[in-house]
């Protein structure tokens, strides 16, 4: 019997439901067990190691030594399972020990690697949100690497343990179950502008009420201000004036629309003051920082102010955020909108116009200019802006370097045999060997069923199976070899593209991401959302519950008992009616007003 089976056998006896769940976990490839220098196994998630890569035992010992031990009889809860190096010392000393691990994958790998039976026998392993039966109050110790991966889960646990008055999981665990009102704030221009539109659509498809505050129309004005003065300071002042006006407009919009959530995309015209004002008006503010934190440093100001700062990079960004005192951050990678980026039947004319053996759509960053100069012997078309028409790449640049609409991009993606995707980098010549995050193009191309060659990125394996769903390169030579090979093997190309498309449609659409985002925001701010309505009650059920002398009972008796009934629904019906309000009607309106007042934050 190997370790895994031994663990599972004990778990089946002590917590069968958990055993069942862990047995079904498929661990994604970016969760890896590797060897530390001293030969012991350690766990890596992406590039982040949960234990010391030199001597995990010594590190675990030091950690345990440094913790304040629980007083006699006090239960001990440790956040973060890892591979057990840190908490094993408490098995003997703590009266009752619980280890809470937020990730199913980590728990599964630990089950495969470490003998957990002493913990499992005392029912001490809790996975995910299965901690609502833990004794309170308890001493809580934190495994820092797990904390950085799972800030939100930690906050939830911490809050639960700290406040014994907090009601049961039914309310504490309120996942978004009620349609939210969401105001999406677009930037004035740039790569995140279309993402704002995709987000708005995705929120709506998820059943929420979403509206986008479109700042695109302000961009011409913003540009026009550049023509006014030659003094940079003056221009800056004018632009700031416009941005102030836009802030004001956002606040007015929010005051009228009263969103539960303000969802801002990178580069959106938000500053700390405005964020504060929006929060004061009762909205949660989330910011999706779809930028490279090394290039764009404005996160330092915004991240501490918002209720959730969602990022597309992990370490060392997490450490930088922690250092800046930011607590409410979480990982939220990019995705695609499969209704925009889709398979398309093209006419022969369109195929001629948009098609080529090799295509690239995007702006002419320095590293792209360099790499693509090595591909000029192929049938190459370059689409997009910021290219130098007078450079050796000039003949390959389409439409005089005009910007390409999303609709045309879809046609190009569909028409080209190979689509290149080279992540931009202002720091590196050629291909960035340390690139981590994925750009939207990776997902958009895949969603179109287009075959892409993409430069290797650290995060890639957690989204796609390299070689099966996507093909990568790390040098120009390798790129040329791949081009030669895949131009010659159309069936392989199509098979890979098809698998890539299936993968994004299954896991990487904006709907998937934003559903997750709402959970993350709630985790980072427990109780973030106006409480969801209790499950629908039918009039019949309600009549049974009400005492006989209730005025509501006689009021409802004339209606169909199978109809479902909610306070909001009744209130709307009453408000639309005419004539004198009866007493039950008045009370229902009163309660509904009260409920709305609570949501607004003022009665």
């Amino acid at each position, binding site marked *: 019997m190997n370790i895994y089976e031994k663990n599972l056998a004990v778990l089946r006896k002590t917590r069968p439901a958990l055993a069942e769940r862990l047995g079904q976990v498929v661990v994604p490839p970016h969760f890896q067990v590797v060897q530390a220098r001293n030969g012991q196994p350690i766990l890596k998630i992406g590039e982040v190691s949960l234990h010391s890569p030199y001597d995990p035992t010594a590190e675990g010992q030091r950690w345990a030594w440094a913790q304040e031990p629980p007083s006699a009889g006090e239960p001990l809860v440790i956040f973060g399972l890892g591979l057990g190096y840190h908490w094993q010392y408490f098995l003997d000393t703590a009266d009752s020990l619980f280890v809470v691990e937020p990730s199913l994958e980590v728990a599964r790998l630990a089950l495969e690697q470490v003998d957990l039976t002493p913990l499992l026998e005392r029912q001490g392993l809790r996975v995910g949100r299965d901690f609502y039966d833990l004794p309170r109050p308890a001493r809580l110790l934190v495994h820092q690497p797990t904390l950085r991966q799972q800030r939100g889960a930690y906050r939830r646990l911490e809050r639960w343990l700290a406040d014994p008055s907090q009601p049961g999981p039914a309310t504490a665990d309120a996942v978004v179950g009620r349609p939210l009102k969401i105001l999406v704030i677009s930037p004035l221009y740039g790569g995140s502008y279309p993402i704002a539109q995709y987000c708005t659509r995705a929120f709506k498809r998820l059943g929420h009420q979403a509206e986008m505050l479109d700042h695109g129309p302000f961009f011409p004005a913003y540009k026009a201000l550049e023509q006014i003065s030659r003094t940079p300071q003056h221009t800056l002042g004018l632009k700031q004036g416009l941005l102030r006006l836009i802030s004001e407009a956002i606040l007015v919009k929010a005051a009228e629309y009263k969103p539960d959530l303000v969802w801002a995309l990178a580069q959106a015209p938000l500053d700390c003051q405005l964020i504060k004002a929006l929060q004061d008006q009762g909205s949660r503010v989330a910011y999706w920082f779809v930028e490279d934190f090394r290039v764009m440093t404005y996160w330092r100001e915004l991240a501490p102010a918002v209720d959730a700062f969602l990022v597309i990079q992990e370490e060392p960004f997490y450490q930088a955020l922690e250092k800046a005192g930011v607590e409410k951050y979480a990982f939220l990678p990019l995705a695609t909108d499969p209704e925009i980026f889709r398979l398309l039947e093209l006419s022969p004319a369109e195929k001629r116009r948009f098609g080529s053996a090799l295509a690239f759509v995007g702006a002419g960053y320095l590293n792209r200019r360099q790499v693509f100069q090595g591909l000029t012997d192929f049938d190459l078309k370059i689409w997009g802006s910021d290219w130098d028409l007078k450079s050796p790449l000039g003949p390959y640049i389409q439409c005089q370097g005009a910007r390409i609409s999303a609709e045309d991009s879809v046609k190009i993606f569909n028409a080209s045999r190979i689509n290149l995707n080279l992540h931009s980098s202002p720091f590196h010549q050629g291909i960035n060997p340390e690139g981590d995050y994925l750009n939207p193009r990776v997902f958009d191309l895949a969603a179109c069923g287009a075959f892409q060659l993409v430069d290797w990125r650290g995060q890639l394996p957690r989204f796609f199976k390299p070689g099966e769903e996507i093909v990568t390169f790390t040098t120009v030579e390798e790129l040329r070899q791949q081009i030669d090979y895949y131009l010659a093997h159309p069936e392989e190309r199509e098979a890979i593209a098809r698998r890539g498309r299936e993968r994004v449609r299954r896991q990487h659409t904006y709907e998937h991401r934003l559903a997750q985002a709402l959970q993350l925001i709630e985790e980072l701010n427990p109780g973030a959302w106006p409480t969801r309505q*209790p499950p629908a009650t039918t009039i019949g059920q309600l009549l049974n519950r009400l005492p006989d002398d209730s005025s509501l009972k006689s009021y409802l008796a004339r209606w169909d008992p199978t109809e479902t009934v909610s306070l909001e629904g009744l209130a709307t019906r009453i408000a639309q009616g005419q004539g004198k309000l009866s007493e039950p009607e008045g009370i229902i309106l009163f309660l509904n007003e009260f409920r709305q007042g609570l949501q607004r934050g003022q009665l």
Partner: protein
Amino acid sequence: MTAECILVMQMARLGDLIQTMPLLCRLRAIYPTARLNVLTDRIGEPLLTGHPAVDEVIPVDLAQLSQLLRQDSWGAYQQIAGLVQSLQQQRYDLVLNINFSSLTRLLAYLLQVPRVLGYQPTADGRGLIRSPWLAYIYALVHARRFNRINLVDVFRHLAPAAEFPELAPVLFGGQDQPPGYTSTLRLIALQLGSRHHRRRWPVAFYATLSQRLIQAYDLRLLLLGIKDECQLGENLLRALPVAYRERVINLQGRTSLAELSDWLAQAQLLVTGDTGTMHLAAYLGVPVLALFMGPALCFETGPYGNGHYVLQAEPDCHPCAEARASCDHAGCRQMIRPEMAAAVIDHLLGGEALCLDSAAWPGVQLYRSESDALGVNYRPQLARPWTFVNLVGQAYRRAGQQLLGIDGPGLPPNSWGYLPSGMRREMLFRKLEKFQQVLRKGNSQTAGEPELQEALVPLAAFQQELRRQAQLPGYFLPNLNADGDQYGACVTDFLWSSLEGWLSQAKGLET
């Protein structure tokens, strides 16, 4: 009007409840033998329990209701139905609803009492009717610069004028000496926080002022506030020299409402923004130096009673709306300098004469509260020339007083400033005359004169609100439909004649 059983509904914040006290005293004076009950949020209960004007406090636990509503809306229904039933059993013959809120409006409707004053439900319970006085206040809020009526007086005049002298505001609470207090301590209280950050004086200024006070007087500073404001207190302490920190007693987040009252009552002075603590101090008879800026306007929510001081920052844009994101004049928080506050305190504590050279107080006015026939008004201490806004604002106040049928003088015009000279005088006269013309003839050729247009806004809003209400199924004011336009005409006349009186007086001065 007779009444045997009266219910006052005040469900808003603590500050509002304190601002309701003079209304309760007035009601008690008018109806000395009636039963007077107050419906309020449970948080405010300690302020009213044992109050000599009040027979019974009926607390509603809004926090508990909101919790219940989340978990079980039908349970919440039963609870409210129970409340309504128990209120109905009291057989109130008069209800005063002083909250602009659908909640109290619906409750008032559900009680089915013969008379509701204040915000009244329509006959079908679906709409809201403001009494002409409330419609007038509602109209003034459309151009707040012109508003000169204190919220306490708004509430007070919801009860008919008393034939008997009103009970003097009852000093209530604060009778117990707080633990740790010895009577040899001389205390000045500071309330650093404020509900809206734009109303808040910078902590750095409080720190400078504190240092100055500790140097000059043998006293202790008392930091008041709720738990959320602790950071402000810590920032202030950090800014003080170490030796001075012992002279500060930090009570932020450590007092119940009763304890806060006890401490506050021992203070010789409270320095504060526009806060609930300020209203509590004024109510307890503790002198107040209030620092008003941003959206806060002392005429509306200044400390009630005689002899309080207010430093009001008065940039051209004041008072601003609370919901503005950014502000070009964010400087109004910096306009009141710590030296100014120190000078007022030296006057109050040390008996120093106030330097009232208005050039030394740029952009800031110092007001002192005093009573007139309508209630409390604020008299500027720094001599500045009359402005159009000033005069029209006072005219609106006067018209409000006449609307209520109250005789008696307001503050005389020379107490609000002096007649400017030269061009400024001409322009002022021209503008006032134009305003009068519009009032008289009803034509509105005011294009290009934003101040004039703004001055007409409340009048138009008043008429419009009365007309809107005339369409509603009336309930308690059956004659309102006929009277709507008359009220508008009356106010127009009142405004016109006030201005006429002052103008002729001013022109008399001129010649």
